[in-house]
């Protein structure tokens, strides 16, 4: 454990040194306060945003939108991935398309989504859903296709129904890969949702950043950005822990 702890302590120490240097540069006027907020002002602004300007409500809005988007992606994506696994002709035909879509800059369709759904949570949620859905379909199909044939044959020897085969064999064996899809889908969904909130001045955390910039509240803007980084890092950590839990070493 000390082996792992040392780099973490070095990292924290470097962060504090950088923050102190930045603080000094801003206080001495070497960096203009209208461009860079001092770290102490940034931290104070996070408290102010939380106490007075609904930062936590915005966090709730973003996380709920992401949760809804990912839940919808799983509900729609799992059966779609299973269907592609059961119909390998279609799985093979659509696999490259799904891969290309997964790598495509899907966030750029947001003006089209705005045209269809307006400046609403449906739009921000839909932008999360599309990336989440593609990730879940892609990894579900891959995960099920990678289930060892022996396991499937054992199930057939026991005369399992297709439903039993799915719940008792395919899903447990494919879970680590399927969860990778859900993890990636969740991260991309969160990125898209916060990004679109920022672009359309609507919704949760992205909106808070945009509003602070519009009001020229520089410490508030930096505070909101730091908070978004913390939320992104926190989400990444939680998802990694969940994946480790699903795949014990």
């Amino acid at each position, binding site marked *: 454990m000390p082996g792992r702890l040392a*780099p973490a302590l070095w990292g924290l120490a470097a962060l504090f040194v950088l923050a102190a240097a930045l603080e000094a540069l801003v206080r001495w006027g070497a960096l203009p306060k209208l461009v860079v907020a001092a770290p102490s002002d940034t931290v104070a602004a996070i408290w102010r945003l939380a106490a007075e300007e609904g930062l936590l409500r915005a966090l709730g809005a973003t996380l709920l939108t992401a949760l809804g988007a990912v839940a919808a992606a799983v509900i729609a994506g799992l059966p779609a991935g299973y269907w592609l696994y059961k119909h390998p002709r279609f799985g093979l*035909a*659509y696999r490259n398309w799904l891969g290309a879509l997964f790598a495509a*800059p899907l966030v750029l369709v947001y003006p089209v989504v705005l045209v269809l759904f307006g400046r609403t949570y449906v739009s921000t949620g839909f932008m999360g859903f599309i990336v989440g859905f593609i990730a879940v379909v892609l990894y579900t199909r891959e995960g099920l296709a990678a289930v060892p044939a022996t396991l499937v044959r054992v199930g057939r020897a026991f005369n399992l129904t297709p439903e039993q085969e799915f719940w008792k064999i395919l899903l447990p064996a494919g879970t680590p890969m399927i969860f990778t899809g859900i993890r990636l889908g969740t991260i991309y969904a969160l*990125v898209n949702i916060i990004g679109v909130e*920022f*672009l359309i001045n609507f919704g949760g955390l992205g909106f808070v950043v945009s509003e602070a910039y519009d009001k020229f509240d520089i410490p508030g*803007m930096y505070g909101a950005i730091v908070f978004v980084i913390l939320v992104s890092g926190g989400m990444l950590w939680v998802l990694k822990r969940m994946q480790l839990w699903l795949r014990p070493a």
Partner: protein
Amino acid sequence: MTRWGTHKIRLLTLAGLFALWEALGRTGLIFGEALPPISAIAAAAFNELAGLAFYHHLAVTLGEVAGGFVFGVIPGVACGLVLGARRVLGAAADPYIAALATTPKIVFLPVVMLAVGIGPGSKVALGAISAFFPVVIATVAGMRAIPAVFVRVGRAFNLGRGQMVRMVYLPALALPLVTGLRLGLGVCIIGVLLGEIKLAKAGLGFLANDYYAQYNFAELYAIVAIIFALAAFANAAMSRLVRRAEAHR
């Protein structure tokens, strides 16, 4: 499954989707005017490509993407080399880089606009920030995967730091590096275009936003389709590079 069978499924799927879209667009059954028929979008795309104005916006976007890519890749590779060569430093920086890499880069746009103004420089900077993270992560991963014997041989020959980079690290890094460059170019394009959509006077992102603001939906869909085609072309070109690097291994 024959190759023709795969093509047939794909062709039929495309034909079905286009026919459904055309029918919905013509009847206005679901989204009304917000969903123009495919034929109108194709005509709008043709008009765009036939006019000179489009190429002015394309040139602006390509210039910003090129600038962002260069300014993101050079520090990305340099940081990756340093963090990959120094284990403790790399381990200390890992969580911060991972958190920042997961953060939607568009939220940094206000900081960038305060620092370099709202002109093309801010889009170049956002593209650079976006490209930096995949490149640094790929370079660090590549450095960590270099067999220790390569490094020991380099040291046995008393190679200097520059020679080690040129003769040991970079050749061994070719594959992870081009993979990082492919991902970096993709997110650089997204960063530049989102920056243009938020605030710009020229560029394809600006053009898409302009059409959205003017309710010219067929033109908006056409521009988004052209952007997707260009991004897919860039991705295909970079994937070719990746395959060449794989072949060289």
